[in-house]
Each structure stands twice: as C-alpha cells, then as structure tokens.
C-alpha cells in the first residue's frame, strides 16, 4: 500500500477537526481562516489567521506610554527597551538609530531586548523585520522623547525650543555657550509620564507618527560601521549566552524522545538509570518523558540510558523524499494563495504559443542547524514561571507556556538571552517548554540543553517544496505566459500552534499552521500573462513527528527562487539569449535592474548565451546569475563554479553579490550578513538534505547532515547599494534566496545539464552527466 494514499478517516473530537490518514495520520482542521482585522485585536497574534484573544490588564506594556520605550539615567545614559531580540547584530544597529534620533553618543545607549515584563511587544524577531519595522518604531519613540526633552530644557533654560541644540545628550542655547543642561539633569532616573500615540500591534504598530523624525541627511551614526557592541565579549568568553545562564538551586534536565513519531510509552523503566549518581527524577506526563539530575553529565547519561518502551505510533514516517513529493502533488490544499501581479489569460497564451517549456523543481527538508542546540532555563513556582530563553518570540513563549500551565499570561515572565544563530528555528521554543514541564515536576529551576541528536532530529525543519513552472513563447520569441505553482507544507510550529512538549501532554492544534507564500515566484518579471499560485497541504499528524516544520531563513523563498531563476535561465538558454540581457527585457523595476547590472559588472560578466560546456575536460567551469526582490530588499548574485566531471563535486569558487536594502544602517553589518548568507546559501545548495526513512530521521549529527566547511568556502565579492532616501529594509535573510539558483545556473553553464533538484550532490551531478540528457 502506498503510505501516502490519503484516506479521510475520522473526525477529531475537538471542534470538528478533519483527520486525514495517509498511513501516517495527519490531522488538519478546515477552520481558522482569516478572521477579523488586526486592528480589532490590539497586541494580539501577529498573524491575522490566528484565533483572537483579549488581552487582560497587565499582559503588555502600554506602547502609548513613552516610559515603555526608554529611560534616562542620572548620568545621561539612555536605556531603550525593545521586544525584539538580537540575532544578527541588531542590538548595535537599533542603538545607532536611537542615538541619532536622540542626539546622544552611540555608547550612551543601552538596549534591553525581548523581556516580556519590561519591553513592548513589537512582534517576533522574524523575516528581517527588526530594522525596517522595530527600527522605525524605536526611531519614532526616540524622536518623541527628544521633543519632550526639548520642552523640559526650554522650561529649564528659559529659551524657546527652536533656539536649542543638542549634542551628546546636552542641550545648549544657540550662540550662548554658557547655558546648557543635560538629559540626565532634566529627567535622569525619573519617568516622563507622557502619552504618545501608538496604534496597531506588533510589527505593524505605528508609533508617534505625528512626530517628525530627523532627515536622513542629518544622520551622523546611522550609515556608519559602528563596531558591534557584543563582539568583544563573545571573543573572550565573557559574553553570557543562553547556555551560560545559571540560577541558584538549578538542576539539569533532558527530554527523551525517539527519532520518529511519538506515541504513548507503554512503560518507562526507572531502574535503568538507578546506577547513575545524581539522578533526581524521571518525569512522565502524557507522552512526554524526561529526566532531571543534579549535574549535567548525570542528566546526559540518564537520558541516554533510560529505557522507554515506546508504543508503535499510528503516524508513519515516509520512506524517503519521493513519497512526500507525490503527497505534495496529489493532496488537496488547505490554502491556496495567488499573487496580485497575476494578469491576463495564461491558457489562451499557451494555446497560441509557438514554443512551450515546463519543468519541475524539487527542494528537500533542511535543518536550521543552530551551532548551539536548543536550550532554556525555567523556574516554575506554583502558578508562576520565569523563563530564560533565546526564543525569537519571547511573547509567544510566554503565551504558549501560559496555556500549558493554564495560568494567566502575566504569571509567566520570559527573559531573552542570546544564543547561536537561529535562522527561524527558535520561533518554536521547544527547550523552554521541556524545561517548564521538568521544573514543574521537581519544583526547582531546571536547565534543559538539547543534545546535537535532539536538535538534528526534532528541529522543526524548512519544508519540502515542489514547484511546477510552465512558460509560453510566442512567434516573436517573447515570453507570453508564466504559469507557476509552488506546493509545500505549512509551518506547523508557527505562532499560535502548540509545540513539541505541548503536543506530548495532549494540547491539540486548532489550525493548520502558517501558509506557504508566493514571494520569489517570478512576479518581478513583466510577462503579458501571469498566473502564480502557492498551495499549502495539510501537515499536522495525529502524533507529533520529527518532519514538523517552521520558518527557515527567508521561508519558502530559496526554493521558490531556485525554481523561478532556474526556469528564467532555461528560457534564456532556449532562446539563445544572454541570461542578464534576457532578464532585463522583462524587469521593470529600476532598483532590480540596477542591482542585477551591478552584480554582473562587479563579477566581470561576459555577455553570451548559456551553456558553454567545454568538451572532454575534467574540470568544467561556468557562471550563473539570479535576482529577486523580497520585502523591499533586492539581492542579485553571480556564482562561478567548477564541476569535477569525474567525481561530480561542485565547487563554488566565487560569489559576487550586489545588494540594495534601501537605507543602510551599518555597512559592515550588511557586509557581514551578505558573507554569511552566501556561505549558508552555498551550503544549502550543495550539501543539505534531511535524511529519513520509515524508521525515523537519520540525519542525527554533523556527519549525516554536513554543512559547508572552511576548505569549501567561495571567494565573496560584495557591492552595497545605499539608498538613504528610502526606508531600511534589512539584510538578515534576503540575500540567501538567490544563491542556490545562481549556482544551479552556473552548473548548467558549465555542463549543459539542467539540475532541478537540490542539493546538487556529486551523485546527482554524475547521474546527469552520465545520461547526457539536458536535465536531471
């Protein structure tokens, strides 16, 4: 029997959820579509798809109070509070914005980030939104504070505000050097007690729009490469990462999980860990099993040795990625999205075409692969909890834990502590939930540190994608139709969804998860007829299983852009046009055109059609290009590759990227992000695929899930395009989206073979070269 044959089996008890079984029983609910407008639910969930809740007094700091945003100390220091967390150096970039707006020195600003009792909820730290959204909110709050400070200074000095100037937090009177007063003297240690406007919620919140911020020409600190404030301590061992948090009386815990779907254990043999000194408790709650010990080493050994007799799960794992592709292709979606750029009549254009092309592109499950596996400390005392966690959404963690503990949100105090790069992984705060269950069981603070194997297996992965693209070319050689369909699973671990430990104690999802998007699907090209769709298939299983999914750096866009920019390249090759010239024919947006040209120029692009394979040489060389636009940022990359025709190994020798993200806050910070995105992009294109079989996930460490290493890194060239007159659009994740397509196009240029499946492993390359066909 095909494991993926879909049979609707029964209805879940909880509210009419549709339960579907494909041998491995997913549950999906046909409810919770777009309900209500965000404005009706201030501070509520970031995603309007989610069910509403009504905040209670004390749940959130009021963004309409200026004191919620900043405080001035007696010595004139400014503490700025933000609900965002620092993953990519934004502690520094946000402080630059604030310092400029307030006219204080950069090092007078201290950022407090991601604490549910001390910061405004500005939404989760996702989607490169910190600089564009939260940065703007902090800028406006700082501008409002400056205005207040000038009012106070005007009263104090007896001069009208227009005559006052500010320098490094000291207000002076123009033309009278003697009269001055500092911010610290004006308000240090006291509250402003001033109300500002704030409407909307989280990343969409409008803060003090009535206050005029500085003109960009007056920025002194924004636009400069201020060194990152966090870096020195990270290089000396003085920095406190999340794994370094130590709380008095703290114990060490580990959850124990199989590598496949989790069913109720038939039994847990506590005697199997009796021989380990320091074991405090074996904890079982529902299908959650964990251990708590006095020392970390005892906890590790106990988790390793604990004998759990797991019952056979009803949810079966797919045997490999192929049945998942079939499932994506055949399953009725829970959600279909289209694109506002869709236009014309695609079918008519196909009917009248002189040539048509079509192709299918495949993208595997990939891991986030944080260097530091998930970790958190929780201290549950009665109906209250304090949690130290590197979560990307501290407020999400708070809300989930409140549900788990069945207590009011304000009883849960979540404090952000930085970890290693997360790339979306910690939108699901699994370790914190594990720690809550274990701490509640023993009544003491418990630190949970996932092991490497836990992280590789249970990482909520970037989803598998299947993309089908067709294009029609008319008799004049013009592309007349673009028909694009991308299918993937939702992010099952998105905001508002119960996560791993919650599922194990019986909290059921009421929603299918965050739907797949349509970005990067070719809408930047102005074809006469366009139909772009993305489909989301059900992906909630009766039991929680390790192929669960979450946002992964530019969620869905590397796979979609891989398909789009590969297929554009296929069209250019079909029509024997240079790939850059071909794109320019259909690109209208001047920023995209400029960025594409900048990348090509910087790379020394020579105009000619692809491919240009050289016959009978061991090392084949090629170049490829790709471009995109996402959230206002525009990346374009040229990849140069060497393909070893004997071993099949692809080496990316150089990547040249041009990048336009509007106003650049910190040029070196953006360069750092480009380098990182390029290297991770090469890794994802060449190496990364989560392996699994019917028995479970088999990518369990860095050998079975390799990532790019020093001897494989390309040279990198960077071209930053600064647009100071524009908003800042961010750089944390958008640069990566063009890298895999540029590489695949370069491999085509080198070999004449079109590879449509990521990763481009030596086996796939060799298979393509052997068959001698033009695609593989």
């Amino acid at each position, binding site marked *: 029997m095909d494991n993926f044959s879909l049979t609707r089996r029964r209805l879940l008890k909880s509210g009419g959820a549709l339960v579907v079984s494909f041998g491995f029983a997913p549950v999906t609910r046909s409810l919770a579509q777009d309900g209500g407008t965000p404005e009706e639910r201030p501070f509520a969930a970031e995603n309007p798809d989610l069910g509403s809740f009504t905040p209670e007094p004390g749940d959130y700091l009021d963004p309409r109070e200026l004191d919620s945003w900043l405080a001035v100390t007696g010595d004139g220091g400014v503490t700025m509070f933000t609900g965002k967390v620092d993953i990519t150096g934004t502690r520094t970039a946000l402080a630059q914005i604030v310092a400029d707006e307030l006219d204080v020195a950069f090092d007078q600003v201290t950022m407090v980030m991601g604490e549910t009792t001390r910061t405004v909820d500005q939404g989760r730290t996702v989607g490169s939104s910190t600089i564009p959204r939260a940065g703007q909110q902090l800028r406006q709050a700082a501008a409002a504070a400056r205005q207040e400070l000038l009012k106070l200074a005007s009263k104090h000095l007896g001069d009208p505000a227009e005559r006052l100037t500010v320098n490094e937090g000291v207000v002076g009177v123009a033309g009278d050097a003697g009269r001055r007063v500092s911010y610290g003297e004006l308000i240090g240690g006291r509250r402003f007690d001033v109300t500002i406007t704030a409407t909307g919620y989280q990343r969409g919140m409008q803060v003090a729009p009535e206050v005029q911020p500085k003109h960009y020409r007056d920025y002194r600190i924004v636009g400069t490469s201020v060194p990152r404030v966090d870096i020195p301590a990270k290089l000396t*061992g003085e920095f406190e990462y999340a794994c370094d948090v130590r709380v008095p009386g703290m114990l060490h815990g580990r959850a124990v999980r199989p590598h496949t779907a989790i069913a109720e254990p038939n039994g847990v043999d506590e005697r199997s860990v009796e021989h380990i000194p320091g074991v405090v408790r074996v904890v079982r709650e529902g299908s959650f099993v964990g251990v708590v010990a006095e*020392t970390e080493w005892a906890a590790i050994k106990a988790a390793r040795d604990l004998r759990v007799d797991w019952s056979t799960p009803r949810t079966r794992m797919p045997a490999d990625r192929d049945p998942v592709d079939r499932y994506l292709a055949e399953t009725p979606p829970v959600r279909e999205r289209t694109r506002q750029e869709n236009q014309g009549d695609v079918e008519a254009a196909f009917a009248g075409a002189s040539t048509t092309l079509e192709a299918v592109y495949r993208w595997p499950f990939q891991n986030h692969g944080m260097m530091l596996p998930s970790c958190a400390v929780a201290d549950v005392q009665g109906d209250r909890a304090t949690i130290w966690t590197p979560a990307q959404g501290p407020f999400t963690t708070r809300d989930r834990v409140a549900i788990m503990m069945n207590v009011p949100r304000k009883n849960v105090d979540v404090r952000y502590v930085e970890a290693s790069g997360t790339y979306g992984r910690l939108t699901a705060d699994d370790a914190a939930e594990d720690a809550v269950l274990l701490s509640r069981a023993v009544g003491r603070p418990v630190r949970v540190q996932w092991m490497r194997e836990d992280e590789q297996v249970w990482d909520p992965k970037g989803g598998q994608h299947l993309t089908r693209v067709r294009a029609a070319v008319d008799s004049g050689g013009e592309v007349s139709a673009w028909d694009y369909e991308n299918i993937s699973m939702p992010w099952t671990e998105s905001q508002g969804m119960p996560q791993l430990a919650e599922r194990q104690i019986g909290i059921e999802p009421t929603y299918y998860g965050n739907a797949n998007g349509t970005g990067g699907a070719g809408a930047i090209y102005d074809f006469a007829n366009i139909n772009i769709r993305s489909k989301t298939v059900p992906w909630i299983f009766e039991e929680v299983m390790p192929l669960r999914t979450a946002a992964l750096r530019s969620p869905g866009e590397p796979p979609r852009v891989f398909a789009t920019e590969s297929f554009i390249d296929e069209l250019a090759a079909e029509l024997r046009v240079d790939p850059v010239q071909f794109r320019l024919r259909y690109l209208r947006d001047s920023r995209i055109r400029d960025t594409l040209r900048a990348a090509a120029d910087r790379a020394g692009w020579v105009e000619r059609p692809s491919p240009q394979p050289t016959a009978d040489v061991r090392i084949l060389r090629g170049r490829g290009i790709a471009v995109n636009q996402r959230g206002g940022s525009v990346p374009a990359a040229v990849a140069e590759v060497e393909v070893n025709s004997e071993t099949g190994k692809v080496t990316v020798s150089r990547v040249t990227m041009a990048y336009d993200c509007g106003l650049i806050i910190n040029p070196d910070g953006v360069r750092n992000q480009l*380098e990182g995105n390029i290297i991770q992009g090469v890794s994802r294109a060449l190496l990364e695929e989560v392996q699994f079989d019917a028995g479970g996930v088999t990518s369990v460490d860095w050998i079975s899930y390799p990532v790019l290493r020093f001897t494989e890194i390309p040279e990198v060239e960077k071209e930053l395009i600064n647009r100071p007159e524009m908003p800042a659009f961010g750089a944390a994740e958008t640069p990566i989206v063009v890298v895999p397509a540029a590489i695949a196009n370069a491999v085509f240029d080198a070999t004449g073979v079109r590879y449509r499946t990521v990763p481009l492993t030596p086996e796939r390359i060799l298979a393509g070269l052997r068959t001698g066909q033009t695609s593989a």
Partner: protein
Amino acid sequence: MARYSLTVNGAAHVVDVEPDTPLLYVLRNDLDLKGPRFGCGLAQCGACSVIVDGNPVRSCITPVSTVGNQEVTTLEGLGSVAEPHPLQAAFIEEQAAQCGYCMNGMIINAKVLLGSNPDPGDDDIKEALDPILCRCGSHLRVVRAIKRAAANNAATA
C-alpha cells in the same frame, strides 16, 4: 565521585566529579567558564576546544580523569575585553563574528596554528580550521583575522 586537581588558565582547582565527566562540563559547570561551549558533544564541531599542554583538545569527549596535571588553557586564559590577546584583538578588528558562538573554537585552534606556523597562508588556515564549524558563515572574516593577527606577530604573544 572522585577528586581531581586541575590547572586551568594558570590557577589550581579541585573538583569532585564523576571520573567519566567530560572536561567541558567541569570547565563550564564547576569552574564557571563560558569560553568552551557545547555544540555537539561528538567531536564534530570544535565549539568546546581548549588547549591542553599546547595541543588543541575537544573537551566534550575528554574525560576529566585523563587530564591529570596537564595545563589547560581556555578562551578566558588568552585575554579579556579589557586586555585582549592579539588574536582576539585581530578578531575584534575584523568584526569576525555573527552570533560568535563558534569563535571559541576558531580562536583556540588559531592560537595553536600560529604556534607551529607563525605566518600561515589562506590555505594553511582553511586546512587547520576545516574541522571547526560555523553556521553563520563567518569563515572569510576568521581567515582575515588570523592573517591580521599573524602580521601583528600574535604567535609570540
């Protein structure tokens, strides 16, 4: 439980731990050091690197009982924010970090490399650091930082 005397960053310490406890957990949990970091526990990533009698060692798989009276040096033993080691200073100059979590492994292994090869080329550095993983893609900056450090004669520091 057994009692061990350790010399870490020049200071003597006595700890009471199980003999099979990896050095990493002793350094982190008993001696409160934050330089050596947990990344895999499998000798696959290098985040836990320390120097033992001049050699780079993966502390995550090194039982404390095997350390004996050898001299252990951690990231903290090289320098501090106030007084960084020339290698650390070069990394700061190059802003060689994104999350920075892997940088313990980078700096510790670079220190050992410079000890045997005070003026390494790009390929020497890449070969030496190939076993050390970085997920953020800070590799290029690490290479530049080590070359900068070499130019500043960090090897003799």
